[in-house]
């Protein structure tokens, strides 16, 4: 039951949010924050259950035939993520209350944030892969709306668009992946899924999973959307785009590890792409001057490290990944919140403009220091322990990788320095005057989350026993011991080197700025690809839907004729010339009359001759009916022709005299006409012989008088045997009358007594 509460609480709160905000103002978010803390408590209770090997599950059917059921399973790794989501969530909601203040949008934003939280919990606790996908897509949607919070700003709209499009590439790939997985294994629950690396579809599934994970977790070549998403208000960036949502990709890879990691491509592909992302990050960081953008780039780097560790795939690497995931959440979220506070206070986030805020905002800067030390990987923070483990795991793979990781760690140190030292202790700027300390509901989250990182570092054993070890066990690997102090090892040396180099890079950043090459921006490349595809689509549409009825008709006719001829060649549909040998003189003359009059109609330059031609054609048809001994049809046709000629003449009398252009014979139209005639001729010849009898028409002949009580078979068919058709045709005529009435304007006015509403 408690697992259901994890979803019921945020969803109910989410729906209530617009009203709650109207009622309670900014206290609403604080109330929400309190509820989320209760949820965090629930998660801890569930963790206890899971660690003794009986994870709570919940399952009910949704669309069983499609493998879709709501199956939740609170295993340790999922709960580990859920704990991060709820604890940081509680902080973010408390922070939001003051950050947004009395902004009227707060109610909606809180609602979307809660919806996001529920879907993120769905991602991490889903056992059913379709449910995982459903939650995954819901995080994309809520992220889209949240990034676009400042929808009046074109930058926010563009950032939201890019984020949604890129994550949707991943979402759609994931859709493919889960269907393939489900159909291949016949199992839809992750906990029961066998390893499938030998299955012929394994490679496709792996590629699709990678696309999903890389796009969600902003890995190269999709890494550009994350900096663009920084247009969102800072609490949203802190929550979605550093602590939780972007980790969904990493989470997915970790979940797929037991299923796919034996595949030969697993390690090389993941390590390659994460290394590429690291290189992009290393090059981007010295160029960035915006606090949030700096943090966003370093988030991409951190995610790359996690992907890399999952790629290496050894138990030790997975342990390192788990620890780092925790450490990253504990330092990155507070740093974002600090950036938000600075922005809130002085309305500026540019490191070249900030400085000297330590006096005015002491507690904010204290939290920045705590988190920054962890990010730089300095003992006794959790970040230090994580870094040591990462270096060790990296070395087990390849020396080049560990070099890269060390450089990345250097870049992290530099970011930490930029984000913490410049705003706090840089030279006083004019902005300092405006600065003011943030209220406690903003300070508490950043301080507390940072302190959690510190506490974790100090009480590593507790973390190991209660969080990390159970989590990695549920990923199917052995736990490895954690330790803050490994002795004087190579890793310590590398780690210290990174800190020193980072400090150096920080002090010399103006020089670095000049050396580092400019990367072609991923966002620009993305834009170019989209625009190419779109302009291709546009020209295609302009060719096809060109507005000319002639070309529409031509295409339809040509395709139809081509299909018929193609089929006629393929199938056995004999044309029997023997049946058409007996052409009488009457038939021949009728045929000639029809042909001559249709040519006359086509080449007529005035209306009256054209109508006359049409009439003559009809008379030719009447002749045919007479020859075929169908007097009633002939009579009907005769009357219809006369009537239509008379009506047309009357109607055209009111129109100005029309003189057409001299007719030019256009070869295209000639071909179309000839093709149509030829096709109809072939079809008629094919139709000549009956094969499966005339059972029905014989029956009509026999029963018209006997059962229908009419001597005229056609009449009985029309009014009795197939009366429904006649009813339909009468309806068509009535509709036509109504339509003509509308067109002539006769039905336009209606006398309504009172003003219509």
């Amino acid at each position, binding site marked *: 039951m408690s697992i259901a509460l994890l979803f019921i609480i945020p969803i109910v709160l989410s729906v209530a949010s617009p009203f709650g905000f109207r009622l309670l103002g900014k206290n609403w978010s604080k109330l929400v924050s309190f509820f989320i803390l209760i949820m965090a408590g629930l998660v801890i209770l569930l963790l206890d259950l899971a660690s003794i090997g009986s994870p709570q599950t919940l399952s009910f*059917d*949704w*669309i*069983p035939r*499609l493998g*879709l059921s709501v199956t939740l399973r609170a295993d340790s790794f999922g709960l580990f993520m859920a704990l991060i989501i709820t604890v940081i969530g509680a902080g973010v909601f408390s922070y939001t209350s003051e950050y947004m203040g009395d902004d009227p949008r707060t109610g909606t934003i809180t609602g979307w944030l809660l919806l996001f939280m529920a879907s993120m919990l769905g991602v991490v606790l889903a056992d059913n892969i379709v449910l995982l996908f*459903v939650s995954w*897509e*819901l995080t994309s949607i809520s992220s889209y709306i949240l990034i*676009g919070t400042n*929808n*009046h700003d074109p930058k926010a*709209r563009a950032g939201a668009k890019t984020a949604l*499009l890129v994550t949707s*590439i991943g979402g759609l790939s994931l859709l*493919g992946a889960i*269907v*393939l997985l489900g*159909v291949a294994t016949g199992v839809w629950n992750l906990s029961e899924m066998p390893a499938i690396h030998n299955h012929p579809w394994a490679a496709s599934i792996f590629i699709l999973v990678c696309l999903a994970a890389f796009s969600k977790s902003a890995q190269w070549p999709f890494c550009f959307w994350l900096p663009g998403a920084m247009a969102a208000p800072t609490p949203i960036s802190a929550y979605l785009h550093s602590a939780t949502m972007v980790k969904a990709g990493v989470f997915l890879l970790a979940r797929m590890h037991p299923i796919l990691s034996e595949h030969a491509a697993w390690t090389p592909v993941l390590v390659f792409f994460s290394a590429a992302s690291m290189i992009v990050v290393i090059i981007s960081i010295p160029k960035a001057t915006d606090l949030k953008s700096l943090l966003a780039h370093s988030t991409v780097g951190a995610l790359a490290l996690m992907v890399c560790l999952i790629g290496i795939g050894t138990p030790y690497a997975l342990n390192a990944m788990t620890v780092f995931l925790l450490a990253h959440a504990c330092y990155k979220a507070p740093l974002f919140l600090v950036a938000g506070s600075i922005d809130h206070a002085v309305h500026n986030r540019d490191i070249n403009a900030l400085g000297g805020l330590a006096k005015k905002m002491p507690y904010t800067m204290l939290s920045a220091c705590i988190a920054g030390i962890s990010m730089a990987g300095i003992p006794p923070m959790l970040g230090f322990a994580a870094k040591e483990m990462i270096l060790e795991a990296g070395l087990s793979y390849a020396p080049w990788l560990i070099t890269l990781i060390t450089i990345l760690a250097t870049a992290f140190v530099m970011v930490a320095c930029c984000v913490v030292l410049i705003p706090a202790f840089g030279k006083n700027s004019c902005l300092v005057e405006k600065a003011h300390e943030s209220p406690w509901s903003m300070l508490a989250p950043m301080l507390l989350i940072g302190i959690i990182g510190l506490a974790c570092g100090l009480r590593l054993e507790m973390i190991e026993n209660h969080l990390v070890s159970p989590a990695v066990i549920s990923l199917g690997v052995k736990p490895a011991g954690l330790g803050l102090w490994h002795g004087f090892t190579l890793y310590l040396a590398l780690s210290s080197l990174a800190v020193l180099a980072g400090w150096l890079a920080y002090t010399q950043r103006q020089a670095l700025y000049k050396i580092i090459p400019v990367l072609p921006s991923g966002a620009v490349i993305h834009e170019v690809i989209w625009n190419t595809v779109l302009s291709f689509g546009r020209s*295609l*549409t302009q060719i*096809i*839907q060109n507005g000319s009825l002639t070309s*529409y*008709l031509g*295409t339809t006719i040509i*395709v139809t004729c081509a*299909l*018929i001829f193609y*089929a*006629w060649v393929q*199938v*056995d*549909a*004999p044309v029997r010339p023997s049946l058409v040998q007996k052409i009488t003189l009457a038939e021949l003359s009728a045929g000639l009359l029809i042909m001559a009059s249709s040519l006359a109609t086509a080449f007529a330059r005035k209306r009256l001759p054209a109508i006359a031609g049409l009439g003559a054609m009809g008379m030719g048809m009447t002749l045919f009916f007479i020859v075929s001994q169908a007097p009633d049809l002939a009579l009907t046709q005769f009357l219809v022709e006369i009537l239509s000629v008379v009506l047309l003449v009357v109607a055209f009398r009111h129109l100005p005299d029309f003189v057409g252009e001299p007719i030019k014979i256009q070869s295209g139209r000639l071909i179309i006409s000839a093709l149509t005639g030829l096709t109809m001729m072939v*079809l008629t010849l*094919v*139709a000549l012989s009956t094969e*499966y*009898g005339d*059972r029905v*028409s014989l*029956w*009509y002949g026999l029963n018209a008088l006997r059962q229908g009580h009419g001597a005229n078979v056609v009449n009985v068919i029309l009014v*009795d*045997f*197939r*009366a*429904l058709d006649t009813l*339909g045709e009468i*309806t*068509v005529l009535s*509709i036509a009358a*109504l*339509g003509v009435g509308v*067109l002539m304007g006769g*039905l336009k006015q*209606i006398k*309504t007594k009172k003003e219509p*509403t």
Partner: protein
Amino acid sequence: MSNLLTLPLLVPLISATFGILARQHANVQRWISLAGISVYLAIGFILISHVLDQSYLTAQVGGWQAPYGITLVADLLSAIMILFTGLIVFSVLLYSLMTSKPCGFSPAFHPLVHFLLMGASGAFLTGDIFNLYVCFEIMLMSSFALMTLEGKAEQTEGAVKYVVLNLLSSAIFLAGLGLLYAKVGSLNMADISVISQQAVADEKVGPIRLAGLLFFVSFSVKAGMFPFFFWLPASYHTPSPPVSALFSGILTKVGVYALIRLHTLVMPGEVLGYKLLLTMGVATMLIGVFGAASQMHIRRILSFHIISQIGYIVVGIAIKTPLALASAIFFIGHNIISKGNLFLVAGLASDIVGSEKLHKTGGMWKAWPQLGIIYLISAFSLAGFPPLSGFVAKFSIVWATVESQLWWVMAAAIFTGLFTLYSMMKIWVEVFWKDHPDPDRDLTLGKNSRRLMPVSLLAGIIIFLGLGGGPLFDICLRAGEQLVNPAGYIQAVLGEIT
């Protein structure tokens, strides 16, 4: 019970007739119209519950036994189509009762809608292929009149293209009918099915295939498939929005319905090239979505989307397993509701912002967040996002392609999803998020706020079809199984004769 089957034709006919009689009294006419559609909707529910019990309902019109008379048949597919058609027409009529646009005033509007409904019901229920032709004529004539209702030049131009291309399609249909009747001497679809199976055994099926191909072309025109869809983008954006919504919900869907019948009943087996259908489905999907992505006009975007979505449905029909057919049917139902709602929302939004051209719109998210949420629900549903109806539809289609190992089709379906999302977002950004180019424009709904009711109703159905889609999908699956095994249908129609 067989009289039940005549009601979906009779009720709209009666409502239309009385509507014409009451043309001088706008309010009376509206009540007649609303009463008529309510009764129709109720019949839709009764019909589906009976079909669920008895699998097939038949009625031999005039008491003439099949194949001599005309038979009305309802299997699950027919019942589902009737129900969804009833739902969208009900919402559209509700919406148009609350509109202040001229089409709500035209005394011909309500009767014409009911005539259209009658034609559609006839098409869904008839077991006779010539009667199907007649029903197409009813629909063509009434939709043509609806399209020109306001008499704008733009509407007439679109309507002419619409009617000319559809008349061509009718002519092709008629040619096929002539060829078929000459060959098999019957018009009853169940009877034709029996004979064409016999012809396959006798190796004399060639001419029947040619007739089938003519039907296929004709129905493809009606369904708006590539390369026959020209009439649709040329005309759908011109009438008043409720009429567009109605068309998107009914016209192309009847074409698709006819394709299903043709492919599963009239010409079963490999009579229609399976690859042809599949290729055309994929081409329709892609070209439709490219068209949508390149437009800058709300209803033009939506019109091209209809085409693209038809592609998905056709892919389901082509694969022709019970699951694929079930997903095609679910897709039709979902699309009738989601697309219809998008047209209605678009109409409402463009009334308020004063234009349908995207560069002249904006500001709706701030002014009317409720409408924004309703738009988002419909648009994300169309793009196949969970947990909405479109997700179930797309997911099952993708599943069907995976089961049949049609990788290129699956890739196309997924690729199309991305562009669908793109164009849905384009409308969202330009109409809702962006500020209105004219900052002084009054964006209040005024009396329009009542029109939120029908669109909320449809949005509710979209969510319901997503979250509670299980039972409906099971029904669709049963419908798919009925279609794959036409023996039951034939037995029900022909009775002891076979």
